[in-house]
């Protein structure tokens, strides 16, 4: 059975299964969401209007037996936060279940004429549209619990919190984790508002009795996944008891701080004196000390062998939230001058429940601090800001719109955004390479847009010496293309660490994709395929009105020196323009 497209039209509550057209047949994950959005969404449409769509797609290898760490689901559409095309992906339960229902993608379009809220249940028998007025207004913890009570098979629940219902630009899309709780988010870019604009509060996906995933070449898949699995299990960063498994992504907090690249107090400094107190090391100490439900080495989706998530416990050992990861701890911690993990965890819970992206939310609080609404470091006041959002007060609605709207409301000009999306936890004045990616990614400032693959492993022609000042544009493009490919596989992006150092892992990734799909792909093709995806995304953005002038870091970084190294952003505009010169035939 070939993969199907499930088109759900909320205007008349219809659902149609379509054969996947030839032009999309080779794509999955991010490649597929971007291809569909480019073909079907008018680039100049209003992101919240009737002409935008939400596209949901598992990766190439999602749902296949024992493909390691392959539970990512891509969500695509036009972003209300950036106005660009957007792909944001998440762990959790949805990827494998959608794939096992034989679906390449779900396209959610139209808007209910009755203005009511709906809950959708997708099973092997089709789509059921149910009234969701009893779920409206509820936070995601309660929604996930209610839906697991309603559906005994422990289905995937894709949902939006109150912020998505109000169509605010910092609304993420929640996917439940193996414990049936929110915390896995396609957070960036406000796609929760796009789902809200479709009138859909939650989508339940139950793959019981589904047809499963067709595999073109079992032997090649087995060969590929074995190589990849071996690389993941061998590499110091991803193996059991390795860096990610021990401290999670928050293993980076102290390193980036020691390097002077940790954005602190709204990007006014590169080191935070309280970094150690919100780091992965401290999380590990808290888990050991408090015990109970707390744990490190938690898997965010079934089948993950890296297991970098955690469950943060309170003083009694009861779970507060999963997960306190690096970007979250930084955004709600260092960037707000807050050094108390208990408050960081509580604010993370609020984000998960309300349906907010933690990066944008932390940056928004920092802007409110910069604007004088509350003081940097005032953890009680920071936590209380979430009450404003929950109450949907006028101020709360502004916070829910993210950094740029909040900066305008408070007259702040130190605004760390690119294309409307705020930066993650790496200061481009100290870590210049990532600044090139922040500036030029089709997605806005995105730390996952440029994952590292060594040019020699990626089979890229020409010699690039990363230690030279020249050539940052070539490197950034290579990284962005590799990431676009990995985002299409369904694999977690963290497989990038072992496949950088272990070339058989890189081959294995490509072979596993070839084995499932029958596409003629080897490791040498990955970058070119990634570039095809980037070309589609850039084309959408160009049609939406974006130009080279949008591929720039924020102005203040050119003239404000960042301590401790006291440097400004120094990469030239010409170098930035080189990253995508090839899309203009140059």
């Amino acid at each position, binding site marked *: 059975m070939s993969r199907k497209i499930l088109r759900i039209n909320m205007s008349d509550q219809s659902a149609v299964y379509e054969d996947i057209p030839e032009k999309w047949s080779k794509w999955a994950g991010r490649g597929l969401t971007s291809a569909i959005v480019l073909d079907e969404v008018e680039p100049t449409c209003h992101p919240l209007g009737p002409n935008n769509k939400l596209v949901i797609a598992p990766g190439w290898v999602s749902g296949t037996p024992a493909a390691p760490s392959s539970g990512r689901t891509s969500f695509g559409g036009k972003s209300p936060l950036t106005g660009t095309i957007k792909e944001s992906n998440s762990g959790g339960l949805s990827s494998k279940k959608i794939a096992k229902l034989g679906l390449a993608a779900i396209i959610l379009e139209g808007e209910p004429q009755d203005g009511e809220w709906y809950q959708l249940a997708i099973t092997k028998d089709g789509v059921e549209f149910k009234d969701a007025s009893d779920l409206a207004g509820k936070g995601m913890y309660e929604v996930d619990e209610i839906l697991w009570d309603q559906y005994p098979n422990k289905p995937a629940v894709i949902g939006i919190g109150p912020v998505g219902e109000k169509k605010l630009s910092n609304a993420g899309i929640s996917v439940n984790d193996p414990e049936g709780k929110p915390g896995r988010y396609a957070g960036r870019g406000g796609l929760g508002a796009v789902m809200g604009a479709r009138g859909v509060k939650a989508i339940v996906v139950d793959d019981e009795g589904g047809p499963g995933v067709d595999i073109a070449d079992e032997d090649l898949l087995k060969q590929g996944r074995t190589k990849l699995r071996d690389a993941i299990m*061998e*590499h*110091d*960063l991803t193996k059991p*008891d*390795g*860096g*990610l498994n*021990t*401290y999670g992504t928050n*293993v*980076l907090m*102290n*390193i*980036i701080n*020691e*390097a*002077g*690249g940790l954005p602190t107090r709204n990007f006014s400094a*590169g*080191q935070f004196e309280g970094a*150690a107190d919100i*780091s992965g*090391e*401290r999380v*590990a*100490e808290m888990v*050991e000390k408090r015990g109970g439900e707390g744990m490190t080495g938690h898997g965010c989706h079934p089948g993950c062998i890296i297991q970098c998530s955690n469950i943060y416990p309170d003083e009694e050992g009861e779970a507060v939230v999963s997960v306190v990861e690096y970007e979250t701890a930084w955004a709600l911690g260092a960037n707000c001058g807050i050094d108390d993990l208990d408050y960081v965890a509580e604010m993370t819970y609020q984000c998960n429940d309300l349906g907010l992206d933690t990066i944008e939310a932390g940056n928004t609080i920092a802007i409110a601090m910069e604007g004088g609404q509350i003081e940097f470091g005032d953890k009680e006041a920071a936590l209380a800001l979430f009450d404003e959002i929950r109450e949907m007060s006028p101020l709360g609605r502004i916070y829910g719109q993210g950094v740029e709207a909040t900066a305008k409301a408070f007259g702040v000009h130190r605004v760390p955004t690119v294309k409307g999306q705020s930066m993650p936890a*790496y200061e481009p004045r*100290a*870590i*210049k*390479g*990532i*600044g090139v*990616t922040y500036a030029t990614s089709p997605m806005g400032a995105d*730390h996952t847009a*440029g*994952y*590292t693959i*060594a040019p020699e492993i990626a089979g890229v022609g020409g010699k690039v*010496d*990363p*230690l030279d000042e020249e050539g*940052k544009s070539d*490197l950034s493009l290579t*990284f962005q293309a590799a990431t676009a490919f990995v985002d299409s596989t369904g694999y977690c992006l963290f497989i*990038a*660490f072992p496949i*950088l*150092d*272990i*070339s*058989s892992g890189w081959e294995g990734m490509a072979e596993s994709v070839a084995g499932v799909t029958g596409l003629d792909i080897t490791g040498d093709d990955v970058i070119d395929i990634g570039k095809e995806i980037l070309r589609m995304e850039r084309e959408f953005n160009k049609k939406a009105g974006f130009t080279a002038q949008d591929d720039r870091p924020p102005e203040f970084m050119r003239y404000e020196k960042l301590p*401790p*190294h006291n440097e400004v952003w120094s990469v030239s505009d010409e170098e930035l323009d080189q990253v995508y010169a090839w899309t203009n035939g140059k």
Partner: protein
Amino acid sequence: MITVDVTLYGDIAHFAGGSHVASQDVNLTEKATVGDLLQKLGLSPDDRGYLFINAVLHDAPGLYASKDAALDDGDHIGIFSTTHMWPYQYRDGIHMSDQLQKAMKKHGSMQNVYGRTDK
């Protein structure tokens, strides 16, 4: 005599009396080096990952480019265990010592781990 401020991260924190992160002041002789510091701490270079002196990266897991780096009174040194990760894209363009740059040019500047995997 000079005094430096050392923070140890990861399982090596026990050398400074902690479990996952710990700091302590260490007294050393004038013109002491990183090699002297590690010896005084009882920390084997093989158990040491990234190493910073005053926000400048001086070493990486599997290399030992910092051995002869001279320390001054009041320096801050951050030392990480070998389990700590720092992917290339998150360190591309940071401040590095000349010795480490040379070592990385030789061994491959983009590697996440040195000395144990194929290159």
